[in-house]
């Protein structure tokens, strides 16, 4: 087990290193020069040279990658060039908002998904079970940004119940909560479907087992059998899914924030590509 864990962690480190190398080579492949993007079209060659030295872009490719990885290993993610603040600080400021959002989305999905799955399994092959099944597949299929747009349109614009943008005033928890509802709804809706399907499937398996039949033979009430005996076992695959799912949501949010800030050159080159004045020079 320990060996397996170490192997997985080692592999994860290798993947991060390869990803960083890919990103760095992209900065080099991009036809634009980060310095001319930052300094604008009127920069002199001397200014560009100075900025290159400042950002370490004049050093060989291997040295750049190695020195960046060395800094990361010591916990230093570097400075964001535009705001001149440490990248780690920007990332972690974003991270707690992201964490709250991810946990809120998954949280309400669990609260709704598990009872739905149990209900479906207990009343299997009935009309309402089929309805839950179609609902689950439906919410998994529909893109979450369409759900977000529709709920924004309905709850924020038409009914004006909830705010449309922002994260709320810091410190005012009710206000922050109101800002959280719509995005958490949009992200969590698909998860309701996933959880309900998974709980239903594993619940069906568990309900056929001997100890459940024994509990029934003893005359225990059905709700006690389902929620106290069967659910304890049936929940296990769902916990696994949630573990990897939450990890995935947070890590993709974290990774994208890190990469976003790290490679400001990349995202800014996009603006440069779109800006015809710069594009012509590339």
């Amino acid at each position, binding site marked *: 087990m320990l060996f397996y864990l170490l192997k997985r962690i080692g592999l994860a480190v290798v993947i991060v290193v390869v990803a960083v190398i890919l990103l760095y080579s992209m900065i080099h492949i991009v036809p634009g020069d980060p310095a001319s993007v930052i300094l604008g079209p009127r920069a002199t060659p001397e200014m560009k040279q100075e900025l290159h030295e400042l950002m370490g872009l004049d050093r060989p490719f291997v040295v750049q990658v190695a020195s960046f990885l060395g800094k990361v290993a010591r916990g230093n993610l570097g400075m964001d060039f535009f705001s001149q603040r440490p990248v780690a600080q920007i990332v972690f400021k974003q991270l707690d908002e992201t964490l709250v959002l991810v946990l809120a989305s998954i949280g309400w999905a669990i609260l709704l998904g598990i009872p739905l799955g149990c209900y479906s399994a207990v009343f299997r092959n009935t009309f309402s079970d089929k309805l839950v099944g179609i609902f689950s597949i439906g919410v998994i*299929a529909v893109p979450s940004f369409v759900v977000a*747009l529709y709920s924004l349109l309905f709850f924020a614009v038409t009914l004006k119940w909830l705010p449309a943008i922002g994260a709320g005033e810091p410190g005012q928890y009710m206000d922050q909560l109101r800002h959280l509802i719509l995005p958490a709804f949009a992200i969590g809706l698909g998860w309701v479907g996933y959880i309900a399907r998974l709980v239903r499937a594993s619940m069906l398996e568990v309900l056929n087992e001997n100890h459940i039949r024994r509990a029934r033979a003893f005359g225990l009430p059905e709700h006690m059998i389902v929620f106290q005996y069967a659910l304890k076992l049936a929940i296990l695959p769902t916990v696994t899914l949630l573990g990897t799912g939450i990890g995935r949501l947070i890590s993709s949010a974290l990774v994208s924030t890190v990469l976003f800030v790290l490679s400001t050159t990349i995202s800014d080159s996009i603006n440069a590509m779109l800006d015809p004045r710069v594009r012509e020079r590339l």
Partner: protein
Amino acid sequence: MNWTKQFFYRLYREPMGFFGMILVALVIVSALLAPFLTTHDHNALDIANRLAGPSADHWMGTDQLGRDVFSRVVMGSRIAVWVALVTVAMSLGIGLVLGMMAGYGPKWLDAALLLLFDTLRSFPTIMFALALVTVFGPSLQTVIIVIVATTFPVYGRMVRTQTQALCNNEFIVAEEAMGAGMMRVLGIHILPNIIGPLFIVASMDIPVVITIEAGLSFLGVGVRPPTPSWGSILNDGYAYIRNTPWIIIFGGLPLIVTTLGFTFLGESLRDIFDPKLRKDL
């Protein structure tokens, strides 16, 4: 009963699959016949009528440049279907070749390809898209490259696992003992055994791919204006969400119809063809 008749009979028996098939047919027909179905030129500007509500002339209203939303939505189905077919076919092809190489080839090749698969999968799609857009510029081709690069590792891993499982079977070992080369073993014996489940996974990937394309275009890193992608129609509508809700309503509707249709159809196909793939009862 012959094979096709039986297939349609079973599909007909599954109301969900039948419903899905109707939705999918709707999308495909609108993609094929788009030029005949549109009521206006999808790029024609009509500034006097900008942001007009739904009417007899403009069934879904007009956008901020006075373009007919209905015509744009119909033309958008071409982009969606085209992207879905091209990317799924390419990911399937690349995943098959690399996956079989990883599963059948030497150990170092397996390790290298696995590392490639895992690295590509660990990239968040959006970030990958942003990086590629800087290299190639935002275009339909870039969207296709992004989707293929992020989805073929999934097929690759699947093919690799199945190839490895098959490799130790006696009919493969016997074939090798008789001196069959790698191409013969992979092409004639392994490929037919793994292709079936793969097609089902591919059909279920179509709605995902369409969602990614629309998502990227919605974020502005996908198809360039004035090409009417459903994502860019939603992006146009998002700017005017407070006053003109119909652009978002009608821009999102085809996405919902398409994803629901392909998903329902895919689920039923899986149940009909391969009950073993069905993890949940």
